[in-house]
């Protein structure tokens, strides 16, 4: 409690009666459904928690009943962020779902609560006042709530037919106008929707008047899979969240578990993680820019971008054998030491990418068609915050918030780099921000590789890392340690943590609850593009279909982390 700031003390004195605590750099408040809105209003207006990061459900069924808060089985958990002071708070609300208790919706404070609340109903059956009970990730014929502890993880429910496109009558228009309107279905298998997104639009001519989004076509049950696997076994699953930049997800996950266990990883591991994170930021942006330009008809830049990506794939291949889904980190450090000559190779690739980025820049930045096609769909800073935007899309709207600067983890406070910020929040600004971020990332890589610390690549902590083979073969303690880690796995203490890193798309948060067992009790990922994509319908309203496609590319929606 001693590191608690004045801010924390204020919070404590205000919310003591709602049971306040502080853990892992997060303030935590327990409250109940009746008081929720008052607490939220106070947090937003008085304490400046202006961004809602995440809403999720928790099922306490498998925990001892004595630990259930107020004797209720479910909890609705909120994560809020105060960007100015960089404080995070978790609000936990116990809900008696079986008793028909309904949670008030926080939609009136943050528009961005929309999909999060829908997901909590879909996964746990927690009802929110005034919200329709619509499925979000699972299909519409699904019975039951998949993330409840009494739902079997391998119980499949086949779907007979996709949901039909349907709009209610629009009361604001005359019958003549209504006659001009048409319904059009885009996706889920459409080149512009990058695979698995579905947009149902009501159009007048080529202008989208209303639209509905259907997601969940790539719902791979990441969170349920986490609950059935060991902590280190979850790492390959995190690879496939944002598969354009898998190392970043590995890092986010491992950092959360390490923070929870209080493990300080060695300097070398920190530096290597930074290099990997930045290089994957570059390749993520390359795909976003390249594929986004294809949607606008510019195929050449895509080939340019992909050639650069191939270079990075080669680096990854040298490092671990895999190209895309690398699983490079382990809880407590890295998976292995760098091969000989990797640093030189990496520096060469960085040089090559610098040149390549300049080429892409020449192709697009002053290209009249590209500029005209991307100067669409602006979003203001306040709107962006209200929806829960993070990452390049938020910075393009003019908000200078980057976790690497605001709450520097690893060596981000020691390296020089700048955070580009846009003005208009339109697609062109997003493109410019991404281009500049790539240059800055390359700058970071150069600095880190120039001063790469030596030493072990894994922590020596016995709770997470297998001792060296010599120890295992020669002394009993090493043998026991090896045996316990293999048989019982990494076991963080009872507790919970919300840990966030700056991923390519924005804030990637892992909310992990441990019950002391070998598997995580509950994992909630806060995927950056989930919050961004829910604003799509509103952003593209009264824009052309072709602009909506450009918007989709610029938001960089990755289905793997959107649907999980």
């Amino acid at each position, binding site marked *: 409690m001693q590191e608690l700031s004045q801010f924390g003390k204020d919070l404590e004195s205000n919310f003591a009666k709602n049971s306040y605590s502080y853990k892992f750099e997060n303030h935590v408040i327990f409250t109940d459904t009746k008081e929720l809105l008052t607490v939220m209003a106070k947090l937003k207006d008085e304490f400046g928690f202006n961004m809602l990061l995440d809403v999720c459900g928790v099922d306490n069924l498998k925990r001892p009943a004595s630990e259930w808060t107020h004797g209720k089985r479910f909890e609705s958990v909120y994560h809020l962020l105060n960007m100015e002071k960089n404080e995070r708070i978790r609000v936990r609300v116990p809900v008696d779902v079986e008793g028909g208790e309904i949670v008030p919706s926080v939609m009136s404070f943050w528009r961005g609560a929309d999909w999060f609340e829908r997901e909590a109903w879909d996964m746990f059956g927690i009802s929110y006042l005034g919200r329709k009970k619509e499925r979000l990730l699972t299909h519409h014929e699904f019975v039951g709530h998949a993330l409840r502890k009494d739902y079997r993880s391998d119980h499949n429910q086949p779907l007979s037919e996709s949901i039909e496109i349907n709009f209610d009558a629009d009361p604001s228009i005359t019958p003549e106008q209504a006659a001009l309107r048409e319904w059009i279905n885009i996706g889920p298998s459409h080149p512009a929707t990058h695979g698995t997104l579905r947009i149902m639009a009501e159009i007048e001519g080529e202008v989208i008047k209303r639209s509905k989004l259907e997601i969940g076509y*790539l719902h791979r*049950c990441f969170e349920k899979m986490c609950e059935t696997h060991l902590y280190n076994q979850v790492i390959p699953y995190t690879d496939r969240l944002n598969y354009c930049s898998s190392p970043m997800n590995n890092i986010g996950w491992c950092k959360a578990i390490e923070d929870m266990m209080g493990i300080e990883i060695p300097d070398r591991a920190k530096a290597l993680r930074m290099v990997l994170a930045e290089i994957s930021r570059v390749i993520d942006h390359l795909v976003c820019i390249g594929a986004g330009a294809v949607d606008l008809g510019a195929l050449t830049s895509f080939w340019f971008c992909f050639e650069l990506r191939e270079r990075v794939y080669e680096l990854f291949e040298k490092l671990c054998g895999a190209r895309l889904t690398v699983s490079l980190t382990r809880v407590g450090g890295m998976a292995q030491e760098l091969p000989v000559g990797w640093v030189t190779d990496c520096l060469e690739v960085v040089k090559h990418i610098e040149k390549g980025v300049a080429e892409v820049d020449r192709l697009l930045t002053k290209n009249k068609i590209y500029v005209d096609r991307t100067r669409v769909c602006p979003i203001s800073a306040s709107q962006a915050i209200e929806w829960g935007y993070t990452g390049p899309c938020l910075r393009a709207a003019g908000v200078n918030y980057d976790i690497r600067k605001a709450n520097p983890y690893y060596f981000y406070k020691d390296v020089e780099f700048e955070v580009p910020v846009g003005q208009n929040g339109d697609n062109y600004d997003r493109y410019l921000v991404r281009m500049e971020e790539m240059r800055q990332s390359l700058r970071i890589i150069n600095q880190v590789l120039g001063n790469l610390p030596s030493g072990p690549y894994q922590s020596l902590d016995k709770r997470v890392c297998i001792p060296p083979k010599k120890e295992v073969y020669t002394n009993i303690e090493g043998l026991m340690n090896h045996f316990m880690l293999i048989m019982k796995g990494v076991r963080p203490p009872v507790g919970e943590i919300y840990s966030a890193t700056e991923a390519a798309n924005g804030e990637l948060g892992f909310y992990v609850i441990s019950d002391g067992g070998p598997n995580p009790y509950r994992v909630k990922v806060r995927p950056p593009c989930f919050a961004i994509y829910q604003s799509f319908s509103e952003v593209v309203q009264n824009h052309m279909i072709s602009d909506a496609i450009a918007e989709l590319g610029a938001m960089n929606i990755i289905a793997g982390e959107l649907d999980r």
Partner: protein
Amino acid sequence: MSTNKRLVSPIANKSEEEFALDRLVITTKADSFLEWAKRWGQSNSLWPFPFGTACCAIEYMAVVGPKYDASRFGAEVVRFSPRQSDLMIVAGTISEKQAPVLKRIYDQMADPKWVVAMGACASSGGFYRAYHVVQGISRDIPVDVYIPGCPPTPEAVLQGIMQIQDRIKNGVSAYNDSTAAIEAKKEKAAQLATTEN
């Protein structure tokens, strides 16, 4: 697949010397020659429909991309309309929600058609033994070639495409053996019978 085997003409299984003679003198019936030419043409101008959903789709981009260049095998004309394509490459996890879409698009593809299940998820559900993931697309559609890997390397995908070419040259396709195709043939025969009557 050995190179020798591929050189053998599908018209008849002949030795290499005989086959060399065949290349100088064509002694065959017109219809079987046309059949051979059709298969040769089909196998070298595949028009793939990339049913890309997840990570494998990114790797498929690399296959079409500059380094691996699928056009060397005549399979670069990626079509996003099922009506224009004859090879469906299912790249990525198919969820329960996606399965009806996959089936519908497969049905929309014109005969002849071939299917590649790219990667562990499409082949078997992969390591997602989960409530919303289809445990292999063969539950819904007939599959010609399974490519292992998570995701498979581009080399593996190229080999998969070559396997498809072999199947085409030998006149084999999973669709032809599927119940749907057999039923369609029966229906056609029945229709012919009724029109004749």
